[in-house]
């Protein structure tokens, strides 16, 4: 994690200081990383342990894990996210890519975040699981969770987003509301050589 160069982070209007992932979790921010295998699930661990990993405090007392609570937490998310698995005690490595991604999601949903950052949430995921993950994201947003989805797939971006911030060369090139967003505008901002205003002129 790189320290912030500038700016501030507000969660529900309150400024928060974040120097480590554990502080982010406490501030109510969840992050589902892009590279599932490297940063997401711990493949040797069963679904139960992967689900509770970021919320161990919630399922344990004085550092002692309550196995029953942990199991029911995992079962709750396996049901909610339709994870296809014979049991919650299966090693996560045994699941398909899409189901592993759902377990990674479950870990962060279990922390009950106010802000959830999803980094390429449907990369390397089969079509069926992709649709399910999209449906889930929409549901969470509906229930009031703030979701920041990072994606390089234009159809996904256009289909899911309320506001679209387009990055170019490490900075935000522009922010488009859903109503104004088109593939052309997003690509123009991403490539950085056509500001929106100029793009509009070209279209005329």
């Amino acid at each position, binding site marked *: 994690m790189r320290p912030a160069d500038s700016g501030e982070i507000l969660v529900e209007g309150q400024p928060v200081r974040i120097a480590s992932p554990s502080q982010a979790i406490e501030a109510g921010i969840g992050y589902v*990383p892009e590279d599932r*295998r*490297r*940063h997401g699930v711990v493949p040797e*661990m069963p679904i139960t342990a992967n689900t509770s*990993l970021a919320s*161990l405090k919630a399922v344990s007392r004085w*550092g002692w894990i309550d196995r029953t609570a942990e199991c029911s937490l995992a079962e709750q998310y396996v049901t909610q996210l339709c994870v296809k698995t014979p049991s919650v005690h299966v090693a996560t*490595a045994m699941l398909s890519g899409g189901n592993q991604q759902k377990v990674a999601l479950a870990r962060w949903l279990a922390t009950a975040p106010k802000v959830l950052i999803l980094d390429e949430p449907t*990369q390397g995921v089969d079509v069926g699981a992709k649709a399910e993950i999209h449906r889930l994201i929409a549901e969470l947003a509906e229930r009031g969770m703030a979701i920041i989805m990072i994606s390089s797939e234009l159809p996904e971006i256009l289909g899911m987003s309320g506001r679209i911030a387009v990055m170019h060369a490490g900075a935000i090139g522009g922010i488009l509301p859903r109503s104004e967003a088109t593939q052309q505008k997003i690509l123009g901002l991403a490539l950085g050589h056509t500001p929106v205003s100029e793009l509009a002129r070209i279209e005329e």
Partner: protein
Amino acid sequence: MIQGRNRELSVAGAIVALCLVLAVQAPRYFSRENLAEMVLANIPVLIIAVGTTLVILSGHIDISVGSMFAVCAVAAGVFAKAGMPVPLAGLAACAGGAVLGALNGGLAAYLRVPSIVVTLAAMVALRDGLRWTTGGAWVADLPAGFQWLGFSQSSYPALAVLVAGGLALAAAWGLANLAAGRAIYAVGSNQEAAWLAGIDTRLTILSVFTLSGALTGLAAVLNSARFSQIPSNAGLGLEMKVIAAVVVGGTAITGGTGGLLGTVLGVVLLGAIGPALTFLGVNAYWEKAIQGGIILVAVVSSASRVRLGLSGSRKHASRPAPSRA
């Protein structure tokens, strides 16, 4: 932790097979004296192996335990001779071990020096430092209460077995039921994922090394109490014995999988096999070769499990990052 109990079963099977051969060929192996001697000789190995299991599970390695063992043993003797009550001298030696372990762990966790380098340096520095300080002399003329730590010679083995067994059980329980145990597995399996999940990976690493050092100190004290003198070259090669037992017991050398039941069985197998060869009339030179063979089989079987994709995440990690819109 997850992949069933195959490794433990095969090690247990090997122990049973060895016992069957010995029962037929050399029943004297099971004499009370021989068994008691073997148990006593391997208790320090087991105690240190408990700590080493935690270190290896967390994805690190500590090869300085042999040298630390010698330093702690000599320290306990010197403290006792200086008039410190024996229990206090023992505790001081454990604390000394904890401090040395914390130094290793601190360098590995906070300065990110690879633990093999840190503990190699510690291994050499402690060993040679001790040689220089003692001039190679043994600690003799220990106070009367030192031998058997004030217990009788007959009750001491029971005490030692209780302590070692209790520690192994406690550590096994902790690994399975404590958040800290979960953290050790997570750090060893996928350190970045563990960190991103809010686990204090550095504190976890510091803790396992500190615990490993403290247990090494305890093992040194329990072992020294069996003799009337403390050799300044104690524990030579002990780290290899311990690591071998842990690896044979199924704990992956790359971290993240394994556990203490396997370690206990590994200590039993490797501890039983040396004397067994003597009893079977095999040339003692074969002992190391056979131990080496067992370790090789253990490592190869773990490695083939990794290739099948059942464990280890970093092996798949070289996927290039996609570009972003």
